[in-house]
């Protein structure tokens, strides 16, 4: 009786009817959850073992010889050093987060609080740009950066990522600023503060959660991006990690040892960001996907 009660502690009745149904629902839900992460477990298991051990499936655990060889091979690969790629991804992603968040915050405040001519047109333009495919911009960008001697440079890619991020961050922060209480700003205005002072001294400090959400998502987006880097960076010393991964595949036989450790290295940063900033990440994600 006691055991049964303990088992059913989470049971709240309602939609699922009887306790038995509730128990079955739990089993089904957890089975699905585990099945869903199997590919992640698989790639991790493959990455920490010699390839000869997993050729007939990573789930066979005897013998099981953990080794870091795949990681060393990937990090110090003579052609595409993932250590280099890892650092390049940071060099690209950090400024490509700070610049657009700063600029878009200003624009977002204008959209949230000011009235000015063509405001609605500009806002709708932003929305359309949010949905544009990257392919639609890349050819002129390629030749423009070439003319500016910025092709195949960090700065060129950072400029493109920053510009590309501005529309969605503006949209996101506009929604955030719109929901803030206006009283403080009004009092400050009565006291003679300028727009700029109000924004930097009052609005920005209380909007920190929104700014963090936008930064976290933009950082993850830039880190995860592949297309812009693929088109604009060719020098193996400047390539970002997502860009190097497909090149580790090899011509004829896929080297899953190398590729599995490479995959883990490429996804570890966004995963850590997701775990550490979970509240902001999910808040930002919902704010981005759903209108408020």
């Amino acid at each position, binding site marked *: 009786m006691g055991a049964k009660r303990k088992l059913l502690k*989470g049971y709240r009745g*309602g*939609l699922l*009817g009887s306790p038995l149904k509730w128990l079955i629902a*739990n089993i089904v*839900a957890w089975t*699905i*959850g*585990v099945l*869903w*992460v*199997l*590919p992640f477990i*698989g*790639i991790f298991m493959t990455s920490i073992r010699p390839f000869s051990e997993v*050729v007939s*499936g*990573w789930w066979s655990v005897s013998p099981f010889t953990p080794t870091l060889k795949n990681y060393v091979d990937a990090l110090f690969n003579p052609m595409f050093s993932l250590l280099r790629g890892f650092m390049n991804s940071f060099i690209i992603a950090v400024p490509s987060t700070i610049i657009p968040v700063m*600029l878009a915050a*200003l*624009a977002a*405040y204008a959209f949230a*609080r000011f*009235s000015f*001519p063509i405001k609605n047109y500009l*806002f*709708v333009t932003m*929305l*359309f*740009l949010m*949905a544009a*495919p990257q*392919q*639609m*911009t*890349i*050819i*002129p*960008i390629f*030749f423009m950066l070439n*003319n500016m001697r910025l092709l195949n440079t960090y700065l060129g890619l950072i*400029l493109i990522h920053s*510009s590309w991020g*501005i*529309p969605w961050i503006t949209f996101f922060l506009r929604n955030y600023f719109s929901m803030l209480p206006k009283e403080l700003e009004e009092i400050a205005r009565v006291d003679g503060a300028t*727009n700029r002072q109000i*924004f930097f001294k009052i609005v920005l400090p209380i909007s920190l959660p929104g700014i963090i959400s936008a930064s976290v998502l933009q950082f993850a987006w830039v*880190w*995860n991006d*592949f297309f812009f880097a693929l*088109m604009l960076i060719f020098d193996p010393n400047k390539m970002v990690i997502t860009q190097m*991964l*497909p090149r580790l595949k090899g011509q004829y036989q*896929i080297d*899953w040892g190398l590729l599995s450790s490479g995959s883990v290295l*490429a*996804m570890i940063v966004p995963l850590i960001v997701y775990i550490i900033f979970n509240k902001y990440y999910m808040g930002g*994600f*919902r704010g981005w*996907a759903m209108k408020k």
Partner: protein
Amino acid sequence: MKARGSILSKFSFLIPSFILIIIFVIYPIVATIILSFNINPVPGIDITKGKPIGAENYYEVLLSFKFINRHGLETLSFPMGAIIHNIIWIALHLPLTIILGLLLATLFQHVKGGSIIRSFIFLGMVIPMIVGGLLIQFSFDKDLGVVNLFLKITGLEWAARSWTIYPNTALFSLILGSVWLWTGFTVTIYSAGLASIPKETIEAAVVDGADFKTILFKIIVPQLKPVTITVIAMTILWDLKIFDIVYASTLGGPGGASMVLALLMYDYFARVQNYPMAATVATILTIVILPVVVIWVRMITRGK
């Protein structure tokens, strides 16, 4: 609140953003459209390769077997052409991911540790899509893949193969993989939507003796209609822009059997190096997504 200050002080908030957007987003979009008609939009270098001005590129793309492969369509074999592959992608991925998302979100609301399982499923949204593509290829691999392990366990050993390397299964395996990756999105959005339905509504229905099916279709689904429109729009846009997954796993192959629009554009740009044709494919891709974007923009602006 009517903010005071001159127009200039207000616009000074917008100017830095718009300078970047105009140079690196708006101008390139306009230039891509111009280039698709063989008019050179970039100063200093002619990238039209001297083709005559006109809509020639559009005929060429629309009639190309890479865009629509009539032979493939008639014999129902791959490749069928990039646009058809994108349509198949939407036709399978959209219903699957929406039904799964709704069912799982409902299920996870009522089980212990539902939020933990939800964050498991969300992982597909967190990782780089290039890794997503590799994970799909890995999981469909004949020896290493967990998909074939299940086939072997369930006695379907004859079906075990490296799914991504055969023309007739490459696209389907990628689509199934994309369901695996994207359902994190639908589950999360539907969970947020479900949380906003008042508990009393459902409890009252339970007291009145309504069964699960009635509650689902009479209460939950109608309440989630606005959320569903968002989910559908976002999913279609994602399906049409799909690139990284295909690049990482099959590169559009074998023999074009998993080619999609976004990758076809890249193919014209990088391999064929025909920039006006690449611009044309990009413009066609944009035209295809435009109705969805318009619906989505309308929904957002009407909500205010």
